[in-house]
């Protein structure tokens, strides 16, 4: 839709929008090697996380048990909803589950919601900023505004949840109890090779499925948006069609954004709860 997009082929246009603003710390070893950092993901997720914390802090700063202000009431409703969901799914004693659930839900929700900013607005602004401030070619500046459409961000959260699961299991059962269950559940001690294999697969599949579900949904959503904007570049009719389709997909995406954040939070809480249960 933007000026430069019309000079690109659709493939180039989509590839441009799916590129990260990456900085390779070791450019001599390999291009886009492991020591690369995605600046756009980092900056967006940090800014949104900071926004979340500041928003909550504003409500907490003047938190009163008397009549709450409007913002405090709103934050309380949101956090109490998450707290209620977490308490329904988790029956242990840990005080950490609710903060984990709050962080997951609100942070993911904000990051997913970046999908609603039209991609070409972001590309235009980042191009202008990149060329004006850093002297880069505006078409070479990539900026992915949706951190959850970067598999690094979703995997980072699910792996953190994975370690929290291990931590919860160890705290509830001790190292001996945890290893004992790894060997004996679910088929009894004589089937320990099968048990161990099954348990490891089960354990590892949880963070992978968490991360891939969220990443897939957001990445897919982004690509559908991009295809719609490619349609918009065809001409006047295409622009009209793209507007209608974009609106439809955007409305549908509201559901996905909230649902995926909720699913990630709920499953994390359920996994944490499961790890504390004795088999």
């Amino acid at each position, binding site marked *: 839709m933007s000026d430069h997009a019309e000079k690109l082929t659709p493939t180039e246009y989509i590839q441009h929008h799916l590129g990260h603003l990456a900085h390779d710390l070791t450019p001599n070893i390999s291009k886009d090697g492991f020591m690369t950092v995605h600046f756009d993901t*980092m900056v967006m997720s940090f800014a949104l996380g900071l926004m979340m*914390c500041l928003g909550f802090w504003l*409500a*907490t700063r003047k*938190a009163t048990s008397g009549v709450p202000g409007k913002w405090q009431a709103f934050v*309380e409703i949101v956090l109490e909803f998450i707290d209620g969901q977490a308490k329904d799914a988790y029956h242990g004693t840990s005080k950490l589950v609710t903060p984990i659930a709050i962080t997951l839900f609100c942070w993911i929700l904000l990051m997913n919601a970046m999908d609603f900013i039209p991609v070409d607005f972001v590309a235009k602004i980042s191009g202008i900023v990149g060329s004006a401030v850093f002297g880069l070619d505006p078409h070479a500046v990539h900026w992915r505004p949706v*951190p959850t459409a*970067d598999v690094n961000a979703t995997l*980072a959260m699910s792996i953190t949840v994975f370690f929290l699961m291990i931590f919860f299991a160890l705290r509830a059962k001790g190292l001996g109890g945890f290893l004992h269950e790894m060997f004996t559940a679910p088929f009894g001690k004589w089937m320990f090779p099968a048990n161990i294999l099954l348990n490891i697969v089960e354990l590892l599949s949880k963070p992978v499925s968490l991360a891939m579900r969220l990443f897939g949904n957001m990445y897919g959503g982004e690509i559908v948006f991009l295809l719609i904007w490619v349609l918009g570049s065809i001409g006047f009719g295409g622009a009209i069609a793209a507007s209608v389709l974009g609106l439809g997909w955007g409305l549908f995406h509201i559901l996905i954004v909230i649902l995926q954040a909720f699913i990630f939070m709920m499953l994390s809480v359920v996994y944490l709860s499961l790890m504390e249960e004795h088999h």
Partner: protein
Amino acid sequence: MNINLTLFAQALMFAAFIWVIATKIWPPLSNAIEERQKKIADGLAAADRAKQELADADARVADEIRKARVDAGQITDKAHQQATQIVDKAKQDALAEAARQRAAAEAEIANLSAKAKEVLRTQVAALAVRGAEKVLGREIDAARHRELLDQVATEI
């Protein structure tokens, strides 16, 4: 989808946000919520208590009013009784006084008439003597005819 250092940076960031929420945000807010819940529960309990107290007070007031009405009735009854007693007594006194006065008057009348009779009798006796003297043309000796004179006087 290339996995790189971003993963670790993001994981650290996520852990840091959890820490911030767990230490700075959720405890004060949930404390405020719980405190408010307690306040509301207390308030509701107080309202219930006040309602009960009001009902008790109403019952007590109604009781007092009923008692006062009974008392007032008794007092008016007694007052009526007393009033009739006083009136009766006054009536009786008046009757007694009237009877006494009449008796005194009657006694006085009897006394006066007796006196008048006595005076008349003596005058009649004297008149009779004088009449008899005139008839007889001579003096009657009162001493001699005392017995006769007295007889005439009693006859009158």
